[in-house]
């Protein structure tokens, strides 16, 4: 079977997409091609904590789409589903260092953690104070003692937005780190895949689901989740995802939350809203109030069909930072 994608050479997928991103969003970002990273057009912002994220490509708009005022200072795209190497992470860190230190927001995958770690060591050796916050919001991986730990998935977007707002309003590195950790500690996510995706250089689906099977607890690289079950109505699937999310924190009656229904890339928006409807209904039944919402393709797995639900427990501080102006290619309000 021929792989059906709008690409040229699989080897050039990331390069060309980044070039397209640069052409489309030159008002917001500038791009370094080698080493490859995407930075705010006005980086470094003197006196501001710099925020760098990154990871394998294929999750767009994560992370490049979130570079700009009020969010990330730079994003470092690796090959598809492969962590970037330390060199571009170091270069991005240097490029956004405004003298107030740099935060690395890293999704919890061995490769990402190790490569960011190496880059941080190298940056430290050059006198840049670098701190890392590891995002691990995925409740699908049950027992963290016998695994590489929980994975970082769509909750990353919320960490990046809120932490970016804190840095933008001038908080120092300790405070920015604390806020990133706070968001990470209060957000829980679980996803479901209806179909797999095809990594361009692989040319074949990363896993196979029967016509009537879905994968509950899917990872954003197609890593398997909790269980493979027969296709169910959307409401039943939402209940399967929300249950473990709500139990885990736990979220309780009286909580105010941000409800984030994320598309994995191949699921139409009309379905995401069907999911949102049921999730909001379940939360309401439990006395949990949705005060902020986000619906759309924000942390994708190429063309995978499916969704993830994230719930973030808000307080006045986080709500205020969420509402603060942001101007990126993929998330924008207030300016």
């Amino acid at each position, binding site marked *: 079977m021929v792989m059906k994608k709008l690409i040229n050479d699989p080897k050039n997928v990331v390069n060309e997409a980044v070039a397209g991103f640069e052409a489309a969003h030159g008002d917001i970002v500038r791009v370094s091609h080698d080493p490859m990273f995407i930075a705010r057009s006005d980086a470094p912002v003197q006196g501001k904590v710099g925020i760098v994220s990154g990871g394998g490509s294929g999750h767009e708009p994560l992370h490049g789409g979130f570079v700009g005022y009020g969010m990330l200072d730079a994003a470092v795209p690796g090959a598809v589903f492969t*962590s970037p190497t330390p060199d571009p992470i170091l270069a991005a860190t240097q490029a956004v260092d405004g003298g107030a230190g740099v935060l690395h927001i890293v999704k919890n995958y061995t490769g990402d953690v190790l*490569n960011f770690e190496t880059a941080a060591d190298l940056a430290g050796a050059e006198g840049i104070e670098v701190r890392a916050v590891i995002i691990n919001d995925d409740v699908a991986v049950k027992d963290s003692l016998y695994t*590489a730990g929980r994975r970082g998935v769509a909750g990353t977007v919320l960490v990046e937005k809120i932490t970016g707002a804190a840095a933008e309003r001038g908080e120092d590195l300790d405070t920015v780190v604390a806020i990133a950790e706070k968001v990470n500690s209060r957000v829980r996510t679980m996803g479901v895949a209806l179909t797999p995706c095809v990594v361009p250089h692989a040319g074949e689906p990363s896993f196979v689901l029967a016509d009537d099977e879905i994968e509950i607890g899917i990872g954003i*690289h197609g890593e398997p989740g909790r269980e493979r079950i027969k296709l169910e109505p959307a409401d039943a699937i939402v209940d399967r995802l929300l249950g473990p999310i709500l139990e885990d924190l736990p979220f309780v009656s009286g909580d105010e939350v941000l409800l984030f229904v994320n598309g994995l890339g191949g699921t139409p928006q009309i379905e995401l809203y069907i999911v949102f409807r049921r999730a909001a209904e379940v939360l309401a039944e439990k006395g949990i109030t949705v005060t902020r919402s986000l619906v759309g393709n924000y942390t994708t797995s190429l063309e995978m069909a499916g969704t993830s639900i994230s719930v973030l427990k808000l307080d006045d501080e986080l709500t205020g930072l969420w509402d603060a102006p942001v101007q990126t290619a993929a998330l924008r309000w207030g300016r």
Partner: protein
Amino acid sequence: MTLNDQPNSALADAAPRLDAAWTVRWIRRSAEVLAANRAALNTLDREIGDGDHGENMDRGFQAVLPKLDALAEGTTPGAVLKLVATTLISTVGGAAGPLYGTAFLKAAGAVGAAESVDAAALVVLLTAARDGIVLRGKAEEGDKTMIDAWTPAVNAASSAQAAGSAVGTVLLAAADAAADGAQATEPLVARKGRASYLGERAIGHRDPGSQSTLLLLRAAADVLATA
């Protein structure tokens, strides 16, 4: 044990010490073997990871090749290993990049400026490489990672050297033990890396990193044997 896994002691002991030329030949052979096994490693990784391990390793070793050509005359094994280390770190990415990168870096450190490596130094080199991976990745034997190939390899190399074998035999022992170690990952549940998310579903699949470790160590033995 397949035919391929048979030690060939006659040839193995042809060269008593490993020099810079051998090191370069080893890396070239590794690049060849990894390119040839690119799809196979991707497939192993697709089964219990994210399907890119062959891609990653191939990208890294292909990036090393032109740099080998540019190496000065009279270089040392340590200098070659260090070049490999920095190139892998800056081109492989994923988990394997920092892990193999650190392994080669620590190996380089272990041999220092020596012009060649004898059996005892080889064991030190392999041990340092393995320890570097453990330092970064914190895996233990049985976690279903490349360590499950490295640790038996280091142990076998060490025993062979203690028994008085020359470098060729030590390398063959290491490669054979890595082969057994890689195979032994198959029934395991993973506790590190992406495969750890699979729980029981990882059972029956070989860890791709243990397979690439086997390929690297087998290449080391082979280039000596065919030198």
